[in-house]
């Protein structure tokens, strides 16, 4: 007699990301201070970003341009009327004790981006992730606490206002993500897009891209959201994934034990690979938002919008699609090549110059990437131009040189650049495919090694490799391998 085992409730995670991106402007959002990372404390400040009495903010137009371009790239609707608001709270890293941000009329809303995932069968698939909103705001300063790593418990705190007023763009996703892997992929794709636009360098270590995660669990099939937990302090994509996976496990276990999830903010601890509770939310904070009276409303002229739209580069998703469908690359190669816009552009230039796409991809992802990593260079600093790489690929393809010769030539081409074709001609590296020339050389080699020839003819056929080696040595590797082998076998057999 069997009775049905009680069905165990299956939970699903509901995840949304709030991403703060520092916009890569040379000056701050409301003053002309520099934004460079790493200056000595309080060396990039002025009365305006210090919130001194009587000073006024003036919007850096580059910030607006970058935010609008990011909004456009994320398929958002750009607001025809937008404004700044004051978000009020007291904290020593916020000189005015209010942050100039955007509340109810953000510059961009209702967008989406598409991420690439792998389905259960291991095949690539796509998912659209909604973008709720994108708004502009100023960054706060940095506090260095004495005697503790937090404000509470410290004996003193030092304030560094260099970062105060650095322009930020906050991008809020819809709660469309369901796993750590999806969230990490979303964050990576977002960074790729922002980097393509050139509006954010996406350096997570330096904090120019910061992701906060909102996560709740609910039984599969339920539409109502569970209690939301916020996770902060992840400074890599990997950390985002692991923090979420940890949190899913923690919350699922708690739910299975009948515990309640508390609405709180948790910190990801890299050392212990856990999230720990930072503060429990007691209701929602009242930031007393109201329109910033020191700044005018933003009413973007239609021509300006059209202009900025026209300046958008081709985005990574579009490139990936093109590489796979038109250039015949694998999803993996397409993804790798398009990760960085300058690499993709190098690749495309190589293809345009006549290089076979698959070969170009192999060279770029292989030897060239290796070289760049070793020398800590960007592909834009490479002496070898796409034209040169394309020539090299063509020379191999039409059998002018062997792959081996090509590999030998590469170090010089990489460091000094120039034309692969000219180099081959200058150094006399053209492959020898003429049967007459090759026959003469084979004859000479056979004459010089009578003993080995006799051994071969007595059945030690693996000595063929020895003879090939001798011919290559004699020709400096230039003997065309296929023809050489054919002719050699004929001669060896006598």
């Amino acid at each position: 007699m069997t009775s049905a085992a009680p069905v165990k409730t299956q939970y699903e995670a509901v995840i949304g990301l709030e991403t703060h991106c520092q916009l890569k402007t040379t000056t701050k959002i409301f003053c002309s201070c520099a934004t460079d990372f790493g200056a000595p404390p309080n060396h990039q400040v002025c009365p305006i970003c210090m919130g001194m009495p009587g000073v006024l903010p003036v919007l850096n137009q580059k910030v607006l341009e970058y935010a609008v371009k990011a909004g456009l790239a994320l398929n958002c609707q750009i607001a025809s009327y937008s404004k700044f608001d004051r978000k009020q709270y007291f904290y020593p890293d916020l000189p005015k004790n209010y942050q100039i941000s955007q509340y109810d009329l953000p510059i961009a809303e209702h967008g989406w981006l598409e991420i690439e995932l792998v389905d259960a069968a291991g095949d690539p698939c796509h998912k659209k992730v909604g973008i709720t909103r994108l708004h502009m705001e100023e960054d706060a300063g940095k506090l260095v606490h004495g005697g503790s790593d937090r404000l509470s418990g410290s004996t003193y705190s030092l304030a560094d206002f260099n970062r105060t007023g650095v322009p930020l763009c906050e991008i809020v996703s819809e709660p469309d993500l369901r796993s750590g892997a999806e969230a990490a992929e979303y964050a990576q794709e977002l960074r790729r897009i922002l980097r393509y636009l050139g509006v954010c360098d996406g350096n997570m270590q330096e904090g120019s891209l910061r992701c906060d995660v909102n996560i709740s669990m609910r039984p599969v099939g339920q539409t109502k959201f569970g209690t939301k937990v916020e996770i902060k302090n992840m400074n890599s994509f990997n950390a985002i994934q692991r923090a979420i996976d940890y949190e899913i496990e923690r919350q699922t276990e708690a739910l299975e034990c009948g515990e309640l999830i508390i609405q709180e903010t948790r910190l990801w601890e890299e050392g212990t690979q856990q999230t720990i509770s930072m503060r429990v939310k007691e209701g929602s904070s009242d930031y007393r938002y109201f329109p910033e009276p020191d700044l005018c409303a933003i009413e973007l002229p239609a021509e300006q919008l059209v202009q900025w739209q026209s300046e958008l580069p081709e985005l990574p998703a579009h490139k990936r699609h093109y590489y796979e469908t038109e250039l015949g690359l694998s999803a993996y190669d397409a993804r790798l090549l398009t990760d960085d816009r300058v690499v993709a552009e190098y690749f495309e230039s190589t293809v345009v110059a006549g290089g076979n796409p698959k070969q170009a991809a192999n060279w770029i992802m292989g030897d060239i990437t290796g070289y760049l990593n070793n020398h800590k260079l960007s592909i834009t600093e490479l002496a070898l131009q796409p034209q040169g790489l394309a020539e090299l690929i063509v020379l191999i393809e039409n059998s002018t040189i062997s792959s081996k010769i090509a590999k030998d030539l590469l170090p010089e081409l990489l460091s000094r650049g120039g034309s692969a074709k000219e180099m081959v001609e200058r150094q006399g590296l053209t492959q020898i495919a003429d049967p007459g020339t090759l026959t003469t050389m084979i004859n000479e080699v056979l004459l010089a090694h009578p003993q080995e020839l006799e051994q071969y003819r007595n059945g030690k056929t693996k000595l063929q490799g020895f003879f090939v080696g001798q011919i290559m040595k004699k020709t400096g590797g230039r003997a065309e391998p296929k023809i050489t082998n054919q002719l050699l076998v004929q001669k060896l057999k006598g």
Partner: protein
Amino acid sequence: MASIRELHQQLVSKERSCTEVTEAALAQIQQLEPKLHSFLAVTAEQALEQARQVDAQIAAGQPIGPLAGIPIGIKDNLCTQGIPTTCASRILQNFIPSYESTVTQKLQNAGAVMVGKTNLDEFAMGSSTENSAYQVTANPWDIERVPGGSSGGSAAAVAAGECVVALGSDTGGSIRLPASFCGVVGLKPTYGLVSRYGLVAFASSLDQIGPLAQSVEDAAILLGAIAGYDPQDSTSLNVAIPDYTQSLIPDIKGKRIGVIQETFGEGLDPVVEKTVQEAIQQLKDLGAEIKEVSCPRFRYGLPTYYIIAPSEASANLARYDGVKYGFRAEADNLLAMYKQTRSQGFGAEVKRRIMIGTYTLSAGYYDAYYLKAQKVRTLIKQDFEQAFEQVDVLVSPTAPTTAFKAGEKTTDPLTMYLSDLMTVPVNLAGLPSLSLPCGFDPQGLPIGLQMISNVLCEGILLQVAYAYEQATPWHKHSPQV
């Protein structure tokens, strides 16, 4: 004291040196300050240095502008580089700005001689200058009485001849009310005409800097010197600035002048009412067409103002926390330091307004207060727009009463707020407005006439005021301190 034009002629004709003019102003200050307390700081050294430079310019035969060598008082909520700027608040006791406000920079470039920083209600919040953390300024016409506020120091100094002209700031009447109480001309320009950069903010959407002067002409000259677009102030208007002295034509025949009906009646001192009616008759006699005009929402100005101004103030004043500059109270932890610093650093009126503003912006109250106030503000603006379809200039009393006695209203903030009844709607609408003397009450206290014109129509405002002034003797009276 002589007018700007007279002094300018004396300087260029070398009848008097700039140093002599400056010394005379400083002597007047030294003599009267024990009674008046108009100045929080007298900058004698810098003034004499500036005077020497102007003298050198004149000696070298270089041309000088109309304001060169003219002694001027600056309200102490305008930042002056290297010179303490306190806003009459304890919280900014030792605050020395490292930057100059746009207006004072313009005046410096014009060669004006700043003789000192004038007293005000703390952070310009008040109607009597009694809210200063440092001193109470006396009205030169009766030192038992207040000079009005918040630019009371500037108005008293100009009235008493401690300086020729002065700068004030007007958020709800802070230039016009003291001008009325002290018997001088006070002009609040169109919002955005004068840069606010370096003006310590009280209520950003209402604050505007303007002149206090002994005559309409002096006010026009000073306005011309400070007006103009400033890329450092996003709310400043990018418009060409006319030569305001060209508007000083003593002829207003056919000009349409509207009398705001809602400013007469209950709450208005009968003497003030009678005097202002006489002034209106005078304008009629000068050939103006007088019309009765209704601004039905005018009376909602005061409650609207007392929501919007404190709301903005509560945020503007959040920066005074003891962390970065100014006064800091020692305490065991951050929160206690914040509380102690702000409790000890701010005066009662400032705290009251911070609390009101914090309340009106709070979640759950925002719609009922701040948002509603903004809607009423729009309606008040519309009333004015409609009125200006019919008339060129609106007139009203500047204040319901003449100067009251010091201490008379300090215990009742609401009564004090009523002093601004006539002036606040103008700030809500962003319009230009001035107050000029139109008579005296039986105690010999000055009465002010308020004139309001449409946005950026300072010219017509000055023209009507000038014509009235030239036809009446009031500006020739000076107080005997």
